């Protein structure tokens, strides 16, 4: 079969294609973004927050919530809704697995911690979103809570639902997963000012801060 010329073309051609593709979309961004420094105001996740982030991933919040407010020049509503300034690569310096999301069935959450810092609200909202936002289609997550007959025990994190949703004689107690998840949500705050371009964020923070 004449040395299988066609097979060679097929295999080599396919490999060239995938090499070019990886170069453009994997390797070049890798090289460009590797040295980006975390902004000084952004703190690494604490243990609890990191665990909460794991809960966020495991329950698939990302399929309804993005974490990437767009540039006001491109989509002005994002900032006007209070979702925050346009995010840049440096804002995700501590996100080992990205959670940018591609869906906004619910609002963007990159700055939910700044917008809604109340633990009570978050716990109640997770237990029953419609208690806080009539018409919401966010699922309820009752399995993150324990319904206890009678009063709370010491150490329990009690959920205070709005009066209409309270069940008499029943105390709703948050599980560790719920508390961790809310700690993560509260940590979502990228409202600090940021350098605008990738090139600028490649320079370290310290000399820049010193120069000011």
């Amino acid at each position, binding site marked *: 079969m004449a040395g299988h010329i066609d097979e060679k073309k097929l295999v080599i051609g396919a490999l060239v294609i995938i090499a070019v*593709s990886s170069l453009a979309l994997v390797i070049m961004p*890798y090289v460009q973004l590797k040295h*980006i420094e975390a902004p000084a105001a952004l703190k690494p996740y604490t243990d609890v927050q990191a665990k909460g982030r794991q809960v966020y991933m495991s329950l698939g919040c990302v399929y309804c919530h*993005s974490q990437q407010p767009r540039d006001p020049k491109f989509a002005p509503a994002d900032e006007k809704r209070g979702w925050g300034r346009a995010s840049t*690569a440096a804002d995700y310096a501590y996100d080992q697995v990205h959670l940018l999301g591609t869906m906004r069935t619910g609002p963007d959450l990159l700055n939910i911690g700044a917008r809604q810092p109340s633990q009570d609200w978050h716990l109640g909202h997770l237990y029953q979103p419609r208690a806080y936002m009539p*018409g919401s289609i966010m699922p309820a997550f009752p399995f993150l809570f324990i319904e206890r007959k009678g009063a709370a025990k010491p150490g329990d994190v009690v959920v205070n639902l709005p009066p209409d949703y309270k069940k008499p004689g029943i105390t709703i107690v948050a599980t560790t997963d719920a508390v961790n998840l809310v700690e993560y949500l509260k940590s979502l705050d990228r409202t600090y000012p940021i350098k605008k371009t990738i090139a600028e964020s490649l320079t370290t923070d310290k000399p820049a801060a010193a120069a000011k």
Partner: protein
Amino acid sequence: MNPSPMIDSTSLVLLLAFSVSVLGLFVFIWSMSNGFFNTKESGSHIIFEKDEIGLVEDPATSQSSHELQDAAGKTDASLSAAELDDRLIADKSSAIPAFVCLLASVCWLIIGSAAAIVSSIKLHNPDWLVDSAWMTFGRLRTIHLNSIIYGWASMAGIGVSLWLIPRLLKTPLVGAKFVYWGAMIWHVALMCGVTAIGLGYTDGMEWLEMPWEIDIFIVIGGALMGLPLFLTLMNRKVDHLYVSVWYIGAALIWFPILFFVANIPHLYFGVQGAAMNWWYGHNALGLWFTPIGLGAAYYFIPKVLGRPIYSYNLSLLGFWCLAFFYSQVGGHHLIGGPLPTWMVTLSIVQSVMMIIPVFAVAVNHHMTVGGNFKAVLHSPTLRFIVLGSMLYVAASIQGSLEALRSVNVITHFTHYTVAHAHLGMYGFFTMVMFGSIYFIMPRIVGWEWPHPWMISAHFWLVSVGFAIYFIGLTIGGWLQGLAMLDASKPFIDSVTVTLPYLKARSVGGSFMVLGHIIFVVHFFLISLRYGSKKEPALLIPKVNIPFIKDAKVAAKELKRG
């Protein structure tokens, strides 16, 4: 206002990169095509035997193969017993490996569809089935995606490919036992993967949720199932590789590489991880499902009609263009996101360039079927595949538009994307797979589809259901996008406006699921050789279509009478 020099140099770099890449493409195509295009058009004849052109073939249509032949034009073409033998040997060698994959795929179709319809209802009934974690929307939706993508679509694609390869190469399949091992490993891994997702173990990236420890086995299983392709290639008896071999062969090389690279743990970080995520996500679509779907369409459309593809060279050109442009479009999933602008722009440009290979497919398929649309009525295979290839063109044109910033700003984060996703993966890929399976199964089991009405019911249920699904979500998603961009409206308006359309999706989706159930029941019936076999060999249908030389005489009589 002066444009800032920064922007100028960016666009300059971009322009330069773009010119270089287009130049590179031409050099590449030129080097690949040495001795490639001078096959003249005869390359397209490779799927037919000497005098076979003009002869229809659709094993799924025993009762009406007569009408099918009439619709395709009368012929005195024929197939000698010896020629037929070659094909029978090829078919026989692939029968069991292909069957194993197809059987598995239809089981996953049912699992995936069940998860789909429940997810869909949950979106408008958010307090339904909320008591256990594995049934929450975020997990069921992921179970839907993974069982449909890695169970149904990939397995059906591999099954169809394994069946096509020996036919295309006129060579018995070499290495069937690798397929059995591969399929087994893949399935056990996939079952573990889907269970892991249900239990909440996930790697967290869309399309890559299954834990990487499990993914190792998917790579091994996939590579084992692809291996027979290469073994068979090395033994091939044909001189020329038909266009479907290019598509399918390349896809089988690409997928294991993609899946392996994408699942390397602890390597990717932050937004770079997102770039990699969508490099994988779109390449799974563009370099895995699309080439397999097109490869199948490029075989079955001409084969059923008994006419060579309209322009063979165009189909080959389309192949390399598709490979080149499609492999760089991943960034269009991140438009407006915190990624390097050059990367996103590159992807948008290549998304628009995709119009070229899509046009090649559109012209080719249309011109091959053109004038023969009546044949579509009589051939179940053709009905599904022609619809599928039309929807391929539709999905791609929609995709190219959707990649433009001005459109994407509205549609990006909405159900509109989900509608597009199903137009591609369902309207195109799944439909082509349905059609292929209708052709292949009678050949594998040597039995006819017991109930033609079930094929019709399947076709109409999924077509009507899908129309409702797609039109509903397209409108709903668009309105959602507009509402979201209007900051004077509260966010919840963008939720409320979609509700009727989400419900419509559940209605359309139920039709589709019902269609799937009928299809799968029928699949089991034919596998068990249920019902009365209508004629001794499917290869000689009742109406004496001249599949073999002896029948040629009968056909002449038929024509005269």
